[in-house]
């Protein structure tokens, strides 16, 4: 028997393997990964790891004992370069072909590269993998002035880390506000103020024209407006691209990611995809979407793992995101998209507030700044399709949880309960 083959060993790949195994899948499970590291935690890379608050060793998410215990063979440092759907074999760049009965793409996404003059200069960096983070951390230690291209999650988290390390940081963002695709103007403005107060220079409505350098090192960033900003380090954070080429070349349907159903299954019954590389129809945003988040990777992979084991448990989680910058905790649940009404709970001035987004009188998303209690309640409200009125949302004395009472029954109880 060939068993289950998983390409990629980050959150989605590992979760698919674990769920399939725990759900009773008894055939061999093999994971191949082009990185040399044991599966590691990614969220800290732009934050605690850059700041030196967590070590490489502490990033490890699953260790060798895990794979032995679950009887999963982990093949590190091998890139899958070919797929033959007819013979059910994957070709590795080095070494043998691998046969499979079921295949999961958990290939993730990669940083979008910037294509402007000077993009190849030494000191123009990206942040996605542990290797990227190790390089960025070393370069940041030696740098004085960093320019960050892109005011999205990665860019802002790196800007906050750089500012904490005492570096002069400048963020260049092409749109009129920060995190434009993820949050509403009220949250963008709050984050802008936070970064400005921390000493970060933010240039909105500005496009980078080129990087200048005293070859081979980058020395500055030139904007379309003609402004020249000195830099001895550049971090480009302008989004991600699905690693779906292998699937596409093999003939699978790919549109901004590998197209899958609610079980993570492609048009071919034994071929699955999960995480950053997959595109699914999300009922909470009522559209096809490719998400880049730990929650999406793990929950979608659980659905795929269950399906592979012959069980059922479709992916229908409400999307969740978070970002930590300085002492600001931003949490997002749902996808606001085209909302037609919003309500603010808490105080923007005090730096503790949540924005509730409505579409056709239905609560579709909530952004919280330092209001984790609101966020937790909102997750349950949106998941269950329960909408507080905007007036209730705005009233801090109204208990949002009261709309979603009804608990979960416990099995084994702690002794005193």
């Amino acid at each position, binding site marked *: 028997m060939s068993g289950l083959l998983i390409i990629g060993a980050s959150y989605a790949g590992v979760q698919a393997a674990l769920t399939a195994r725990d759900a009773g899948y008894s055939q061999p499970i093999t994971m191949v990964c082009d990185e040399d590291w044991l599966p590691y935690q990614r969220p800290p890379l732009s934050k605690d790891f850059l700041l030196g608050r967590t070590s490489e060793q*502490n990033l490890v998410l699953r260790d060798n004992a895990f794979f032995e215990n679950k009887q999963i063979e982990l093949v590190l440092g091998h890139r899958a370069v070919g797929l033959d759907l007819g013979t059910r074999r994957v070709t590795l760049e080095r070494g043998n072909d691998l046969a499979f009965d079921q295949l999961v793409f958990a290939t993730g996404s990669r940083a979008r590269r910037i294509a402007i003059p000077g993009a190849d200069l030494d000191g123009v960096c990206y942040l996605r993998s542990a290797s990227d983070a190790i390089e960025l951390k070393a370069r940041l230690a030696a740098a004085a002035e960093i320019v960050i291209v892109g005011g999205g999650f990665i860019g802002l988290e790196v800007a906050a880390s750089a500012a904490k390390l005492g570096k002069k940081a400048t963020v260049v963002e092409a749109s009129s506000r920060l995190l434009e695709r993820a949050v509403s103007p009220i949250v963008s403005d709050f984050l802008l103020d936070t970064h400005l107060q921390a000493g970060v220079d933010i240039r909105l409505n500005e496009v980078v024209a080129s990087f200048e350098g005293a070859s081979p090192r980058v020395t500055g960033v030139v904007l379309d407006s003609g402004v020249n900003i000195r830099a001895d380090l550049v971090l480009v954070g302008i989004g991600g691209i699905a690693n779906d080429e292998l699937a596409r070349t093999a003939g699978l349907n790919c549109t901004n990611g590998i197209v899958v159903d609610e079980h993570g299954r492609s048009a071919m019954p034994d071929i699955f995809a999960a995480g950053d590389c997959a595109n699914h129809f999300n009922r909470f945003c009522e559209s096809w979407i490719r998400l880049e988040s730990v929650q999406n990777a793990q929950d979608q992979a659980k659905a795929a793992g269950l399906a592979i084991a012959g069980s059922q448990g479709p992916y229908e989680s409400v999307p969740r995101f978070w970002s930590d910058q300085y002492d600001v905790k931003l949490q997002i649940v749902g996808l606001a998209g085209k909302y037609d009404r919003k309500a603010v709970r808490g105080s923007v001035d005090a730096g503790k507030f949540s924005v509730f987004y409505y579409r056709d009188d239905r609560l579709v998303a909530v952004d919280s700044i330092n209001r*984790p209690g609101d966020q937790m309640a909102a997750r349950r409200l949106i998941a269950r399709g329960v909408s507080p009125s905007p007036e209730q949302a705005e009233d801090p004395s109204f208990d949002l949880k009261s709309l979603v009472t009804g608990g979960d029954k416990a*099995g084994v109880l702690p002794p005193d309960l």
Partner: protein
Amino acid sequence: MTRVRFVQRDGSEKCVELDRDVSVMLAAVRNGVSGIDGECGGCLDCATCHVYVDATQASSVLPPSDEELELLSAVSGERRPNSRLSCQLKSLAAIDELVVYVPETQS
């Protein structure tokens, strides 16, 4: 070294050793304990590592911070007096064995 005993709802158990500087959440994830997701890695963003600390031991661990309490306020599994986020349970050198119960759901 502290040992952590995870008790599932069906009564099955798994014991893991807790290395220094490693939280109960990370130990669970690294050892493949079911029912503990730990999406955010321990920065108090996701609340997917909820556990019930054995009631006789609840006072043996450091009490929850305000932030942890706020996250616990609307966890997906039933909230109990001994509910904790396991990412915040670490530095347990004084305890030989900590017993935690895994809730029905994390999200």
